């Protein structure tokens, strides 16, 4: 999944090929395209991107949608290629990912959004106007106009009781047919019963007319639902982005060169070309004489494996040597790697719990309020039927599930914001709730506790300058991880020496003649690290060791977690010796070190643990990540881990884990407090309404005040 390497970022030429144009473009001349552009944060970014349309010839329009990180572009295809447009966006410092065309579902959703907004507008217009007519009557100032105002209210309430309240009737009816009570049911009853009751009063010339309270109440409920939906969408939407992170394209060789093809259309027998650090999109047979392939995505092992011509390489492996060609032997969807990706995607669809839970509480509250009203209505009917109707109506209007319907999402937003400020990307709002009950925290080794790359352990300056230069000269061309480590550790000297008869033998090392002397660097695998020996004319001179470096703050964070009584464990697919030596160094208990774990074994360990948190990356962790109550992807293995995890750490430090636990605690505390206030308000208000101290109009005023209060408290606590 590591497709975001530099080469592919720059090469967007596939966008100009007909196979891709079909799926990525829209418009009458297929001249429109959408990009997901990460990194749009402020108005400056918007301006920068949108200004492209004035500077790039052929770009008719570019519109940015900030909340969704989307950019829509319309081009004149004769002047501007999509690939050039993408390059222009890259030049501005953004990373555009072309999105395939929106499905019908998304188009339908857009239409629904618009209809909802229109409904909201109608509700606001009617409720507002009814309120102006009613206002005079509250003070008894209407005089001769009283009946005119009442009838006008009645007329204005007609669109409310029919059109505005329609979704409540539909929802109530659907839930009744499924033999359950939904939150819509009390609303539908309040709207209809209130209408009938008020109309009868109107016809009888009486004064108990509640079109004002009812329309205001329905409007407020619609507003809160609309706001809630927006919140939900903003933070819980993920499918769209995932689509784009799939292995999208591959170079397929033909008689004249190569061509980009969508990965889906790859066939068995196709010959494909890959460059360094690209991921194999299929099970393949190696055609080039040899290739070094990193399996860390599959097994967590850091040392790349060498494959010789004709051997089979699994899908998902990452090419670690320079370009190589392969023949496709098995398709992605039939491979282990493909299966893992598919499972990850399936899992995500059923991952959306927190708001539905808040809805459930709200439903419970409303149902009990409704039952109370009903019981009261019947028992008080004999005393005074009008009073019975008035008081139960007041109760239904007063009862407000705001803390659930509004307070919970709002508390979550503030927590998400706070998390974002500390460099955590939360992909799943259930995290806060789950994180509260975490007992065990599993850390993956590679890419989580340690870097994915090797680092030289010894101080390179202990070797004399001339040998440093010789080593660099030998390793200059090599793409072996050890060569990278040398180049990272030894400061670049001005000029390199020329090497004669340079030979790199896979699995053994590199050798060559400099000033007539034979120099060799031989790799060797030790117990817990990778070693390398340096020979001059067959005489051993130096020994080097390499390790994946431990990431910053690790020790401090582990100590702090232990102090807070979490059980911390190390789980890795790497070899036993490597894992154990790291585990000891970081103070893990013996029974909490799990080594040589393949994806299935990790899954097994995680699923047998109570309330586990898993911190890892890579495809090999994804099954375990999904199974954990809370899954955190540390930076590095971004795309794959993001699909399977709830939280992504954008900073190299694991400090985010502590932040996550803190924020979760605050967030759940805030939600609890909101619920408490809500229960208090509803109990007190309910008693007052039923004992006749609150009439339906006062109830309709109190209800928004109570929600305002909850919002204020949430805002206030969320900011402090």
């Amino acid at each position, binding site marked *: 999944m590591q497709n975001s390497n530099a080469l592919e970022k720059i090469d967007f030429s596939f966008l100009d090929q007909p196979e891709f144009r079909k799926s990525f473009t829209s418009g009458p001349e297929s001249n429109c395209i959408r990009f997901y552009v990460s990194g749009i944060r402020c108005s400056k970014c918007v301006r920068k991107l949108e200004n492209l349309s004035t500077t790039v010839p052929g770009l008719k329009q570019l519109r940015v949608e900030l909340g969704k990180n989307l950019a829509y572009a319309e081009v004149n295809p004769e002047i501007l290629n999509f690939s050039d447009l993408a390059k222009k966006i890259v030049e501005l410092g953004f990373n555009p990912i072309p999105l395939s065309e929106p499905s019908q579902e998304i188009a339908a959703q*857009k239409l629904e959004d618009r209809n909802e907004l229109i409904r909201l507008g109608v509700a606001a217009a009617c409720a507002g106007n009814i309120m102006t007519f009613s206002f005079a009557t509250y003070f008894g100032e209407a005089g001769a*106009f009283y009946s005119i105002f009442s009838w006008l209210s009645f007329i204005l309430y007609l669109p409310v009781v029919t059109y505005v309240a329609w979704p409540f009737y539909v929802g109530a009816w659907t839930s009744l047919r499924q033999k359950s009570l939904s939150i819509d049911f009390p609303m539908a009853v309040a709207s209809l019963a209130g209408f009938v009751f008020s109309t009868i009063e109107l016809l009888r010339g009486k004064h108990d007319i509640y079109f004002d309270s009812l329309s205001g109440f329905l409007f407020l409920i619609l507003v809160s639902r609309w706001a809630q939906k927006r919140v939900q969408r903003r933070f819980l939407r993920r499918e769209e982005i995932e689509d784009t992170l799939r292995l999208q394209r591959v170079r397929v060789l033909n008689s004249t060169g190569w061509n980009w093809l969508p990965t889906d259309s790859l066939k068995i027998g196709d010959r494909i070309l890959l460059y360094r650090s690209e991921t194999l999109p299929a099970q393949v047979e190696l055609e080039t004489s040899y290739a070094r392939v990193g399996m860390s995505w599959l097994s967590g092992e850091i040392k790349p494996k060498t494959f010789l011509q004709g051997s089979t390489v699994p899908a998902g492996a990452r090419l670690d040597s320079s370009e190589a060609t392969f023949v496709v032997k098995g398709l992605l969807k039939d491979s282990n790697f493909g299966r893992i990706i598919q499972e990850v995607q399936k899992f995500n669809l059923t991952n959306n719990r927190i708001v539905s839970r808040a809805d459930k509480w709200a439903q419970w509250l409303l149902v009990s309020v409704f039952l109370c009203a009903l019981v009261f209505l019947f028992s008080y009917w004999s005393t005074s039927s009008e009073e019975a109707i008035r008081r139960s109506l007041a109760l239904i209007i007063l009862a407000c599930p705001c803390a659930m319907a509004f307070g919970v999402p709002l508390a979550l937003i503030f927590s998400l914001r706070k998390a974002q400020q500390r460099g955590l990307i939360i992909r799943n709002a259930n995290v806060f709730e789950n994180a509260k009950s975490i007992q065990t925290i599993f850390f993956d080794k590679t890419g989580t506790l340690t870097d994915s790359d090797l680092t030289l352990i010894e101080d390179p300056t202990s070797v004399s300058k001339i040998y440093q230069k010789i080593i660099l000269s030998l390793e200059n061309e090599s793409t072996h991880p050890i060569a990278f480590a040398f180049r990272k550790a030894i400061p670049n000297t001005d000029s390199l020496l020329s090497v004669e008869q340079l030979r790199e033998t896979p699995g053994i090392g590199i050798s060559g003649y400099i000033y007539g002397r034979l120099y060799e660097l031989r790799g060797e695998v030790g117990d817990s690290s990778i070693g390398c020996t340096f020979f001059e004319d067959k005489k051993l001179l130096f020994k080097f060791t390499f390790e994946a470096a431990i990431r910053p703050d690790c020790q401090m964070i582990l100590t702090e977690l232990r102090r807070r009584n979490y059980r911390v464990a190390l789980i890795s697919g790497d070899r036993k010796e490597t894992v154990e030596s790291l585990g000891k160094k970081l103070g893990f208990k013996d029974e909490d070190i799990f080594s040589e774990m393949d994806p299935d074994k990790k899954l097994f360990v995680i699923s047998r643990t109570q309330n586990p948190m898993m911190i890892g990356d890579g495809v090999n962790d994804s099954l375990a990540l999904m199974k954990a109550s809370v899954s955190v992807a540390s930076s590095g293995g971004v795309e794959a881990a993001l699909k399977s995890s709830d939280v992504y750490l954008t900073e190299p430090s694991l400090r985010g884990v502590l932040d996550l636990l803190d924020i979760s605690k605050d967030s759940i505390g805030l939600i609890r407090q909101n619920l408490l206030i809500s229960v208090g308000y509803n109990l007190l208000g309910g008693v007052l309404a039923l004992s006749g101290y609150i009439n339906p109009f006062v109830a309709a005023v109190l209800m928004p005040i109570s929600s305002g209060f909850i919002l204020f408290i949430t805002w206030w606590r969320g900011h402090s």
Partner: protein
Amino acid sequence: MNVLYLMIPISLLLAGGFLAAFIWSVRDGQVDDLETPAHRILEDEEGA
């Protein structure tokens, strides 16, 4: 007070007019994105 017989229809017409304008703007897609326009006006046109 008789002026109310004139004012009320006018006020209702006005309200209806604004509602119609709102419905038109929604159907037109003007409120599909509620966030970016707020940022867009904050930045000056380049070279302006």
